[in-house]
């Protein structure tokens, strides 16, 4: 069954609700969370519906709308193919889950910051929350570079406002830092887009393939790549991320881990998919950068004592895994990289939310003062182990399937060019992930319970259940990887000659 204007609805419905909340928000208060969840659940269902058609071999589906004819013909379009749809769908489901999670969390946070009576703050939070979700999904579905840029900024500005209003320590400064770094990234991306327009005369993504001028192609790749490497916090560009993710309200931190990873999708879609020839020279440097980032990110994560900042730092290393896969420029590497990205955002969302739950229930962020919480919060502890399993590639959750497929690509590429040494270093580096995900579990959840935490209670179900649903998705992807591979596999195979 095909729903008319399905993808337009996916974008417009949350926007519409976001504007409506301004009027009825103050009557609903924290119940707005259910409204936000409702609309995101609706858009998720719309996408699942498209996904079923794709699964059955139909599609890819396009929706195109005229945007502007003023100077040049510009279309506003959406594309749902096997690559964009899983990415958009999983991000949307994460946003839906976090909307539920935010209800209790934001109640706690707003009370802390603005006092109990401040109901208007819920309106602010949930309206920009929806815009943020639209930004993410929009990037994945865009067919047009300008449109994509607009959605990138749409994801950035709400998250900037959220950290400024609801963040933690030194939040105004860190909000500004986050905004500047990400805006520089976006600006680089825009320069790349403009250069591409010079070459092709069009902003369509598919037109990138017509860019025959080799040197122009190089510059386009370079700017797009630098722009997204800043956003993906690769080594050297990463210094904003521990602050931003560490001090964001956790419900948002969980989602901005998604923005960080989204760069992988954009690179695959634009550079690998459309201009592989020009992108090829960046393969090896990107591979080395990814390995440096993985190792450095791992050690940096190990050096953290702050529970939120820990997961923030691990994002640096985890995102670089996907970059590693993509940098091999092999079909297996790219497919594994995208798969890994999907599974990582599921796991990271859960882990950030766990850090939020612990912070919410105990008021403590420093892991040295935590301990023994598994006895008080068994569900949270279970979720933390599950999330760590996703990150450190333990079957039957999804991380494993992504990781080995990706490493087939890595070994293939390394075997063909530099010898297996690079690949072996990379695969041994994954060992660090297990260390930095399971060691904190020991510190936070195991061992004796400090007397000060005797009265800690398990988090409410509205926080825990959505996270279990996310882990269920990771489980399904893990035991039946076909659910994703059948969609992304053919698209990625068709990208490379």
């Amino acid at each position: 069954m095909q729903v008319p204007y399905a993808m337009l609805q996916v974008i417009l419905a949350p926007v519409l609700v976001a504007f409506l909340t301004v009027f009825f928000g103050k009557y609903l208060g924290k119940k707005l969370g259910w409204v936000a969840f409702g609309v995101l659940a609706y858009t998720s269902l719309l996408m699942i519906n498209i996904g079923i058609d794709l699964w059955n071999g139909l599609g890819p589906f396009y929706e195109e709308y005229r945007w502007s004819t003023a100077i040049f013909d510009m279309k506003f379009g959406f594309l749902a193919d096997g690559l964009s749809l899983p990415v958009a769908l999983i991000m949307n489901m994460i946003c839906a889950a976090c909307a539920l999670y935010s209800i209790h969390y934001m109640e706690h946070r707003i009370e802390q910051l603005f006092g109990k009576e401040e109901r208007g703050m819920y309106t602010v939070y949930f309206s920009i929350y929806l815009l943020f979700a639209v930004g993410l999904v929009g990037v994945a579905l865009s067919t047009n570079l300008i449109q994509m840029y607009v959605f990138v900024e749409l994801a950035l500005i709400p998250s900037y406002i959220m950290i400024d209003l609801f963040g933690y320590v030194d939040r105004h400064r860190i909000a500004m830092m986050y905004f500047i770094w990400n805006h520089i990234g976006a600006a680089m991306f825009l320069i790349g887009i403009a250069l591409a327009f010079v070459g092709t005369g069009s902003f369509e993504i598919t037109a990138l393939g017509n860019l025959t001028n080799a040197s122009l192609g190089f510059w386009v790749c370079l700017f797009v790549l630098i722009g997204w490497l800043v956003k993906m916090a690769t080594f050297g560009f990463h210094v904003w991320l521990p602050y931003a993710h560490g001090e964001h309200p956790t419900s948002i931190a969980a989602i901005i881990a998604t923005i960080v990873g989204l760069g992988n999708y954009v690179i695959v879609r634009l550079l690998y998919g459309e201009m592989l020839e020009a992108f090829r020279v960046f393969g090896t440097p990107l591979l080395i950068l990814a390995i440096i980032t993985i190792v450095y990110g791992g050690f940096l994560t190990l050096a953290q004592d702050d529970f939120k900042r820990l997961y923030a730092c691990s994002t640096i290393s985890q995102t670089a895994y996907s970059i590693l896969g993509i940098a091999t420029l092999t079909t297996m590497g790219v497919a594994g990289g995208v798969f890994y990205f999907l599974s990582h955002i599921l796991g990271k969302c859960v882990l950030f939310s766990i850090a939020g739950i612990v912070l919410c229930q105990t008021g403590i962020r420093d892991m040295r003062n935590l301990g023994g919480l598994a006895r008080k919060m068994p569900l949270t502890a279970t979720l933390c182990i599950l999330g760590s399993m996703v990150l450190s590639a333990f079957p039957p959750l999804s991380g494993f399937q992504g990781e080995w497929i990706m490493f087939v690509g890595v070994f293939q590429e390394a075997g063909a060019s530099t010898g297996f040494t690079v690949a072996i270093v990379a695969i041994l580096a994954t060992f660090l992930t297990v260390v930095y995900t399971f060691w904190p579990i020991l510190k936070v959840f195991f061992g004796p319970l400090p007397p000060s935490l005797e009265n800690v209670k398990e988090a409410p179900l509205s926080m825990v259940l959505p996270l279990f649903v996310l882990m269920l998705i990771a489980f399904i992807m893990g035991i039946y990887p076909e659910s994703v591979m059948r969609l992304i596999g053919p698209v990625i195979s068709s990208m490379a000659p």
Partner: protein
Amino acid sequence: MSLSFDFAPWLCWAMPTIGSVIHFILPKGLGRARYAAVVLFSFIAWIMALLMIFSMPSHGYEELNGFWFSLPKGASVGIGILLDSLSVILANLVAFLSFLILVYSFKYMEGEPGENRYWFFMSLFIGGMLMLILANNFIFFFIGWKIVGLCSFGLIGHYYNDDRKYWIGGPPPYPFQKPSRCGLKALLVTTFGDVALLGGIIIIYLYSGTFNFVELYENAGVWLTKMAETPGILTITILLLLAGPFAKSAQFPFHEWLPEAMAGPTPVSALIHAATMVKAGVYLVARVLPIFYFAAWILNPGIQEAMVFFVVVATIGGFTAFLAGTQAMVALELKKALAYSTMSVIGYMMLSLGVAGMSPTALVEGYTSGIFHLINHGIFKAALFLCAGVLIHNSHSIYITEMNFSRKEMKFTWAFMWIASLALIGIPPLSGFWSKDGILLSCLESGQYALFVLAALTVAVTSFYTIRFMGIMFHKGHSEEKGHGGHAGEPSVIMLLPYGILAVLTVGIGLIGPWMKEALAELFSEQFHTIHIISTEHTVHASVSPIAEIIPIAASLTMIAIGAFPAYRAYISHKLKTSEILKRNELLRGLHVFLWNRWYIDAFFNRVFVSSVLASREPTAKYIEGGMDMALNVGIPRLFSSINSNIRKLQTGILSVNMLYILGFMIILIIAFMVLGVL
């Protein structure tokens, strides 16, 4: 006309896997009957394993294939079962032992904290192990393999609260270890091996294009030749591949997790040591061994690099057998002594599999003895651990020196434990004797005399430490002060029966030992012919002269006597006073300290890996990250603001200064125009 039991292997691994969650689903009102359901699921798994024997095809192997998922570019990964002698025998062993251990723990775990979690992990553990044994491809295998590792983490760290009474190690002044840390250690060490193993699997896939075991066997000639074209690749692959089994099976240098893996409840140790986990590594080595044998001996021209596999397996195995055995000689904790002995016996199995490929004639003898030893060890080690659970429970102490049991009050436990211990030593006609003899024989057959000597020495060591811990626990005599224990008598029959059955089996297998080994040898030769394309002449039993057959038996018996004699005098008849001997002899005292500290290997690894990582935390956060942070997040804004404030200084607001600026600007303009040639 034979019945089709194709469903059996699927149910065999699926049943415990499903069983792991069944007690969460059943209503709480059922009480502990929910856990009986878990035991039932494991019982079904055992029945299914038995059925698999009947579905064994006459031509050696059978594959049951299913589609699982596709990879880009048309390749796909299947989910499938490989039934051959190796997998069916091991599945039966694992399912049977696990079932008995679960029966035992039904009583043992009564009233322990976290029972739900315990049954979940136990059952999943068994499911994972059966999965890896029955899998027909590396990916499916690897999933079971990782699940086993994860469950061990959950089970070893079962008492995650780290209450004082669950600490292991010590006694003071020696440090204690906490269960949660032990669990993490097991997880990290084995995961390191897993990561390397995955690398090895992927390299093999790149050359062979398949993960399927049968296809790997059948096309071995093609892909091995391709791999051997670049020297070094095969060696790297072998080393990566072996890191996995060595870590899982606690072989040097990845062995340090196992002595601490006993922090969990005792049935967990029984499961880890006898049925699951450490046997997985031996299984994998046995599974891939024919490939490398083929490369080294049958392929023409042979690939010399493939010998690395056998040399590494045999030496590491032989060395670990000796290393761990010596450590067991001084252990004070009962479970730790047993853990060392597991490492030592696994070392024997590795040795046996290793020498199997070191000469073209030793294949069947080595392979059979290794697997035979695995079967025997599984049975008697399970019995030992289950007995140990009762003893520790009764005496409320983990140290053998604090145990003082009267053999009259616990005569069954005493007898069963002695039977298992004598099998561990290798006393004829108990089961351990035959397989150990086979291992010694295959060392001789393959001409590895150095390894033979090492293995024979280990026999003496084994006999010493086994009699030592049994003597200290049961035969204290009246001369020593009364320790704890002895007051509780025999355990309930639910606990007694499992290890009773195992002890009887130990005797039973011992009685039919030579014939059973012959039968196994036949099964494996057939398997080699059919799947592994190893031609008949390689599996013909080398005709060893009767004298050569006697050497290992004689050596084994002599070494047992050499080890047993001092142990008997010191710990059973109490003629020797060990503490006085130690006091007098400085060399022995030094040796004791060396062994007690596990050859300082643990300390070395802690220093190199753990401490260095901990030491790196502060510099990483402070200097590297802090430096970059300062440069980018503080430095750049400061640069802008300083430029800003310096420019601001130029604007003084004094007319004459401004006139000077204008003059200067005009001059520059004129110069510029002149240079550019406009004027």
